[in-house]
């Protein structure tokens, strides 16, 4: 073994990392080579000295500072997540609304054709106990005081594509049978018709004739109210939907009758239109009592549905 080869093995020899043959050859060389022996001894002294270097203590504030930094990092992480959510919130919301819309549409059968659609809507809404028009108005923040000035929801929402938003019974006879079967257990207190003035000017005669054909009658001019025999509400709604397709009309039904229906109805009729169908005080001029037929008896009133025409000026 020459000295250069020996020098390459010093480090491994110190660490006992040489195989037996290499170690023996190196030892043999150093026994005869004073220079290599000195080099080895110098290197080993240095390594031994390194191993005796003592560890220094951790600074006293280290853990406290680390704790604060960890808290800071955690907050950054949270802010990062919050930022991500904030940044993509609009996209997420749009997706959620889309998914919800598709889900609702699928539930209501909107993908099955227009005629089936309304029937399914009616069933769905009945099953879910649709909110009354009054409640709708309250939610929209309008017409709390005067239902007559209530905006048509479709207009308010800028949805001009739907000329008629009919929360109605099905126009399809087969579907209607189902709806009527369902309505055996339900009776509408009030059917609210929200209609623009322009639309009403065009179809007021039709509405009056339709109601009259059903045996209904005008009971109030202000608010404009008719009454029709109970059980004709669905037919009224469907006729409105089918025949007035080009008009801005929203028809909304109120929930099932309650125990005080008679009282409410009598109040509406006997009060000369001072109160709305939901009992709230009405504004505006008094109705033309002369044009009204005689108030219904409580018994007959209990068997009737009020059709309230809300004209949006």
């Amino acid at each position, binding site marked *: 073994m020459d000295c250069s080869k020996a020098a390459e093995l010093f480090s491994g020899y110190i*660490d006992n990392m040489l195989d037996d043959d290499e170690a023996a050859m190196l030892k043999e060389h150093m026994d005869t080579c004073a220079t290599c022996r*000195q080099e080895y001894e110098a290197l080993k002294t240095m390594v031994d000295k390194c191993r005796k*270097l003592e560890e220094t203590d951790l600074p006293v504030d280290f853990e406290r500072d680390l704790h604060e930094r*960890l808290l800071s990092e955690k907050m950054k992480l949270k802010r990062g997540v919050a930022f991500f959510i904030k940044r993509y919130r609009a996209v997420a919301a749009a997706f959620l609304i889309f998914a919800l819309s598709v889900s609702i549409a699928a539930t209501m059968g909107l993908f099955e054709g227009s005629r089936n659609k309304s029937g399914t809507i009616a069933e769905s809404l009945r099953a879910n106990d649709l909110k009354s028009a009054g409640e709708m108005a309250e939610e929209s923040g309008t017409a709390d005081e005067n239902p007559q000035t209530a905006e048509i929801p479709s207009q308010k929402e800028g949805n001009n594509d739907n000329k008629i938003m009919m929360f109605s019974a099905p126009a399809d006879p087969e579907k209607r049978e189902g709806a009527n079967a369902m309505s055996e257990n339900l009776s509408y207190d009030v059917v609210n018709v929200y209609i623009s003035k322009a639309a009403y000017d065009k179809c007021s005669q039709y509405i009056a004739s339709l109601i009259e054909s059903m045996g209904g009658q005008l009971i109030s001019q202000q608010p404009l109210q008719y009454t029709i025999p109970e059980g004709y509400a669905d037919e009224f709604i469907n006729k409105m939907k089918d025949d007035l397709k080009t008009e801005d009309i929203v028809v909304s039904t109120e929930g099932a009758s309650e125990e005080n229906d008679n009282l409410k109805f009598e109040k509406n009729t006997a009060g000369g239109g001072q109160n709305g169908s939901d009992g709230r005080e009405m504004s505006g001029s008094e109705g033309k009592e002369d044009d009204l037929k005689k108030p219904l008896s409580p018994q007959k009133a209990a068997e009737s549905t009020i059709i309230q025409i809300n004209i949006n000026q």
Partner: protein
Amino acid sequence: MPKQSTHVGGFRTCRVINGKSMHCEVRNLNYPEKELVIRSRNGDIEAFEKLIQSYEKRIFNIAYRMTGDREDAYDIAQEVCIKIFKSIDKFRGDSSFSTWVYRITSNVCIDEMRKRKANVIPLTVSVSDGEYEIPVVDRDKLPDEAYESRELSEAIRLCILQLEPEYRIMIVLRDIHGYTYEEISKMLNINMGTVKSRLNRARNLLKDKLRAGNLLSTKSSNQ
């Protein structure tokens, strides 16, 4: 005298006798540590502090030997701990947790040294007549043998700082902290052959620097 080095966390026990590793055992995560790792992944700071507590001193010391400055070592050690906290979800237990911790420590230190390459730390001693003067030790207050020992220790500490980072880390991990070749291989992600050659090179460079200051005896010992 045999030197027993019990690794931080109790997961590695390495017995070094007369500078030679006689037995070294590395175990993977035990239950408490595994639980702490899982909790740390979920952002549990308390769990992470318990987990890292037994490694902090070693991290700081590796950084200190790499930088030669306590404040720099403090900053680097803090950075290492934060980096471990932020990336603990990447630890899969393929190696021991300690190996993973010191791999990050080594990488951060080497990166930092490279950033400062233009500012290689010079020896803080002045050169007079070809000899290094070590001003940090008062010779009058120490016996000759102790002085020489302190002198050499201090010279080694300073000369290590003159090595390139990749050689510096070899001296720090192997000769100062006593890790095995295999552990160093995993920590630095280099093969065993590279560990051997790089360590040999690092030691010879360090020896040459010490000898240049007449701080390393060339006398042959009785063997």
